[in-house]
């Protein structure tokens, strides 16, 4: 009950000059997440599309992505802190490294797994490479690409709490401060906010997916459902492991 009290206190939302409230932390958290995702998309989308389209270097990239996935984010953050010092750059790099693999895997496998007879028909009709990619492969890969975005988003939202470790803001502050001050309502309230944010963001992306993906592919989009659930569970698990 007490952490619900913490969550619904308008004082906690507004905060004060020296002690920012939930509203500001939420905006900071969203800011880190958006920036991370933007950078990761700029890296992973063209790379994944190119590899999927040409079929070249696929194994290597999947290997590297999997290796990156295995890196412990907190350890990476400490390493980056030693390398680049305090500030946004360290956590940003760590988060981007976290977000790239699912985006890359989604884009690559989405493009590579488009039915070969459809790609063949596209070429047979006289589409050139870029036309095949943009008019046929990417639209057909969209369900898997958005699946990758959803899983990256979940991981980034839950892991962006690490920004607090290097003195930055975001919802991680409540978890970290709550822990050090033995203020459990604050700590649990902060965790709940992170989880809620992740759920809302995922629902929004789900809606976006229904808007963006061609109705002719919606059945395949629905098949991505179980995979997404698995990712949510995975995301929550890693979140707990990291917060502990």
């Amino acid at each position: 009950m007490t952490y619900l009290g913490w969550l619904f206190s308008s004082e906690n939302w507004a905060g004060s000059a020296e002690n920012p409230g939930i509203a500001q932390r939420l905006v900071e958290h969203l800011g880190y997440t958006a920036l991370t995702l933007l950078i990761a998309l700029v890296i992973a989308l063209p790379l994944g599309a190119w590899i999927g389209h040409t079929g070249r270097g696929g194994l290597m990239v999947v290997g590297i992505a999997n290796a990156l996935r295995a890196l412990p984010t907190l350890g990476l953050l400490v390493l980056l802190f030693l390398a680049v010092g305090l500030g946004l750059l360290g956590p940003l790099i760590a988060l981007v490294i976290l977000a790239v693999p699912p985006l890359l895997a989604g884009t690559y496998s989405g493009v590579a797994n488009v039915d070969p007879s459809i790609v063949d028909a596209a070429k047979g009709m006289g589409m050139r490479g870029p036309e095949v990619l943009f008019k046929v492969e990417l639209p057909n890969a969209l369900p898997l690409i958005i699946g990758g975005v959803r899983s990256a988003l979940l991981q980034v939202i839950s892991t962006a709490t690490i920004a607090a470790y290097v003195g930055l803001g975001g919802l991680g502050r409540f978890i970290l401060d709550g822990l050090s001050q033995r203020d459990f309502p604050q700590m649990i309230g902060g965790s709940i906010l992170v989880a809620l944010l992740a759920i809302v963001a995922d629902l929004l992306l789900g809606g976006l997916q229904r808007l963006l993906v061609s109705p002719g592919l919606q059945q395949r989009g629905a098949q991505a459902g179980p995979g997404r659930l698995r990712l949510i569970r995975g995301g929550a698990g890693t979140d707990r492991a990291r917060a502990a």
Partner: protein
Amino acid sequence: MIEFRGVTKRFPDGTVAVHELDLVAEQGRITVFVGPSGCGKTTSVRMINRMIEPTSGELRVDGRDVLAGDPADLRRGIGYVIQQAGLFPHRTIVDNIATVPVLLGRGRREGRSRAMELMETVGLDPSMARRYPNQLSGGQQQRVGVARALAADPPVLLMDEPFSAVDPVVRENLQDELLRLQSELGKTIVFVTHDIDEAIKLGDKVAVFRVGGTLAQYDEPGVLLSRPVDEFVDTFVGRDRGYRGLGFLSSDTIPIGELPTVGLGDPVPEQGWHAVLDGERRPLGWIDGGHRPGGATVSEGDVVPGGSLYPVGSGSLRGALDAALSSPSGRGVAVDADGRVAGSISADDVLTALPDARRHDPAA
């Protein structure tokens, strides 16, 4: 016109799929490639639009070497229909059909209005325009595939087993429609199938391939049936080829004989088979004359269904023979262009006319 001159395709793994192919697919005609699985039909047809490049030899489409220009430009000028249609699942039917016109820069609006026209041409209800391929039956998808290949009005059409995935009834339907379309459009069509009956029905000329990618025989279908060059073609053309060959012989010389007829409501004839006619002199069936215990007039319940009808002036010997054989009386009913009874024919007449028809047949 499509010319193969000594065209060979050897794949990197050493497989020779097509060996020294010499063949001309004539302008405005349907040329069918037929043969057992793996004999190089698909490879041959895909070399025409350069989806596969020949290893050696020369391949020209309307005089132009396929290897000369840009492959994408070549393909935009050649319609291509593949098995299972290969439609784009993310695009509506109308946008699928408009693909090539849009690629050619004609604009989406123009492409779509052209697509709507084509839907009608291939017999698709325009209300399907906004549907997606997964909402169509296999036969409908194939029609969309044909419409899509025709959209930019290419002079050449390549069709690789386009009807093999649909059931026999739909298939026959699609074949008939293709023949109707072709009589209007006059495209140069190369059609691949492994079904000899389909080949014989559709082809102006049929190329029979044997495994190893060599041409066994290239002839008009009637010649293929009457004079296969060797045992392989003979076996491949299959059973009943003598009978099926009658389908390519003109029946103009068959004499049309008398036909005893009777109308509905007339008294039942004393004896023998009579054709029952309606008021317009169209045949309804047959009645076997003789004493009836109850009524003395012909009622609909007495009519025995007739066999196939023989159209005077447009039929083949095969049609004539079938009309005679399928009739309960042993005499086939001959009808004129309006479907009115013109007389009768017998199986003996057909056989008597056979030597004469053979002599007059340019193919034989």
